[in-house]
């Protein structure tokens, strides 16, 4: 179907150099980003869009925090855990952050083993990533429970500005939803890796496209993004 290119280098126009060469590379035919598959391009653009969602959430939170007339609760007190007779500030968040960042490490290893077509290690590492993710969500549920028991509600809380509860539940909830979706996808893809779907190029149930190990990397992109977002939430919500 694809006859070889009618390329006769002597007759083709000279490639422009410098900035215009850069521009013409980008504008060249068929693909703007060479060696980037459709799926990967889509994930990057989706993440860009999702960045704006989280960006708007965080900006809204900052606006609320700066413009409220009632004092904002002190995060190191509100998020402290009572361990061994004293309050340890931010201990739970530190552990959660550690778990989530570790999961990014295992995810990166899974991607690597995926490209080496090591089915067993890829699947195990993906499941480990999912386990870390689920642990994170579990600890978040614990934190929510603790705050709710102390009387924090989306519309009020005993520590100060009402917007504290509303932004906290909204933003961590939205991020937790992202993590949960990621965990579900990790498990689905890990199962496919385990079964060897990507070695046999089994077709997808919905899309009838051939499976391919690149999906591990695409899932990884999403996972690292969710992780990165958490760093910002951590910084702006807990450390401010």
């Amino acid at each position, binding site marked *: 179907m694809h006859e070889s290119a009618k390329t006769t280098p002597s007759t083709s126009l000279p490639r422009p150099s410098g900035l215009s060469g850069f521009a013409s590379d980008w504008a060249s035919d*068929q693909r703007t980003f060479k060696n980037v598959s459709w799926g990967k391009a889509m994930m990057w653009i989706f993440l860009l869009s999702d960045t704006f969602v989280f960006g708007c959430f965080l900006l*809204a939170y900052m606006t609320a925090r700066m413009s409220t007339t009632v004092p904002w609760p002190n995060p190191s007190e509100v998020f402290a855990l009572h361990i061994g007779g004293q309050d340890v500030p931010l201990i739970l968040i530190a552990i959660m952050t550690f778990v989530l960042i570790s999961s990014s490490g295992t995810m990166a290893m899974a991607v690597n083993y995926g490209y080496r077509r090591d089915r067993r290690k890829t699947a195990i590492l993906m499941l480990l990533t999912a386990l870390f993710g689920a642990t994170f969500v579990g600890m978040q549920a614990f934190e929510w429970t603790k705050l709710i028991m102390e009387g924090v509600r989306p519309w009020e809380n005993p520590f100060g500005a009402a917007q504290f509860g509303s932004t906290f539940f909204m933003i961590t909830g939205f991020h937790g939803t992202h993590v949960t979706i990621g965990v579900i996808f990790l498990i689905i893809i890990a199962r496919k890796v385990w079964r060897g779907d990507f070695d046999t190029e089994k077709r997808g149930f919905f899309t009838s496209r051939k499976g391919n190990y690149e999906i591990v990397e695409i899932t990884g992109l999403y996972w690292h993004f969710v992780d990165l977002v958490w760093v910002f939430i951590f910084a702006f919500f807990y450390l401010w």
Partner: protein
Amino acid sequence: MVNIPSSIDDTVPAAEVEDVELYHPHSWWTTYVFSQDAKVIAIQYSMTALAIGLVALVLSWLMRLQLGFPGYFTFIDAERYYQFITMHGMIMVIYLLTALFLGGFGNYLIPLMLGARDMVFPYANMLSYWLYLLAVLVLVAGFFVPGGPTGAGWTLYPPQAVLSGTPGGQDWGIILMLTSLILFIIGFTMGGLNYVVTVLQGRARGMTLMRMPLTIWGIFTATVMALLAFPALFVASVMMLFDRLLGTSFFMPAIVEMGEQLQHGGGSPILFQHLFWFFGHPEVYIVALPAFGIVSDLISTHARKNIFGYRMMVWAIVIIGALSFIVWAHHMYVSGMNPNFGFFFATTTLIIAVPTAIKVYNWVLTLWRGDIHLTLPMLFALGFIVTFVNGGLTGLFLGNVVVDVPLSDTMFVVAHFHMVMGVAPIMVIFGAIYHWYPKITGRMLNEIMGRIHFWVTFLGAYLIFFPMHYLGLLGAPRRYYELGESAVNPPSAHDLNVFITLMALTVGAAQMLFLFNLIWSLRNGKEAGGNPWRATTLEWQTPTTPPPHGNWGKELPVVYRWAYDYSVPGAPEDFIPQNQPNSNRLSMENAS
């Protein structure tokens, strides 16, 4: 012998990706209903958008009846009037214009104009439509719930949007509106990712970015903008939904309603306005840029002349897209924000006039000494240019803080945005439908009905909106249920309102003729053939018309030139399709 400039290079790189395997439908349901074919999805999007647009048209009639003949139509009470305003605005801007330009024309034209078999993710594309339909149904459900749809105005400003004094504020209306918006945005994101990735990564051999028709540039840039602007509306909708359902106070300050202190307090209504307009202003260009692109192609094709300053046109589209993200607060001069912001936003707003003016000049220069065929698409394209210039000029008034403040919330504003982002893009939509209908159905739309439709719509739109500018300068406020006997509503102004109402009814009736034409021509239109306009772009070069699933048959097209080779000196015909190689070389290859 054909003499084609030597800068056109016939060497085309080899295919980088293997030909896609498409999902092959097995039943009637998967072929026509749950179809993954971008063309079917495009038609589904367009039909849904036109259907809901018809609802919005009827709502505008009802509003005009109230304004022209206050008191005669007793079923239009104040609450209903505000509900009509709100739904009319929201439907027209989002569910009609955005969906039709991106979901409709985007889906139909992107794969065809780029020489692709389909969108890159047909399954997500299908989901996009069904979520859109769901969003429309949720929106329409507002008419049938207790309390009716929301009457907060299409901008949904808090705190009034969620208070009991506003129709639907404490009933179902606002909840359904926000839910519908959230669904629309999720659905749009699925489609939008498709459009962007298809343009970036799914083009035919030889189709460089700088050979893409401007239609694709417009739709592409608008989609990128939509993917970055809709998140702000998404966030605002979620937060307001929480304010309404959970009693949070994101946007709700301390407030006393009917003598009772509400539970809310400490929120920022201006924050909503910032989020809303960070979406809302790019939204204007999300609608306008596809219109700019399409109109460029219509003018070039029907004036048989290459577009003037193609590169400039592309950069103007991109620059307008980028600038539109830093002008949003010019909608908020009277909101009580820091007055210093006004200076910055007025400056950026007026800077946008530069790339926009470049585009207008280039359209006019394309027409200059062209072989202008006054076909229906050309008429609508010309109508667009005039209307857009008119609407744009009043934009200069409203972009300046000192002039805007007295004109704010008057009929002048209504007239301005209806000219520039209502009538002008709609003109392009009509032109585009007259232009591409033969490709979609294989038949031409009826010419006589089309001409009646054009002249009534074009002249009628001016007769509606020109007097409205005057009313605004008199001081007639917008969104008022009735003006009664007041200084801003002398008897002469009221007569104008009656006149505007009659014109609005007439123009609306002309749209019924258009819809009838769409259906009538399906069977009775003239056979169009594959390329009735003798156009260069790839969608007209498909082996069969209408194009089948997969668009191109066995061989994907290869692109050798830009989209605007009209009236090339020495060429045997006055157009050279994009997929036609330099015939010199072709004959050489055949000989060897």
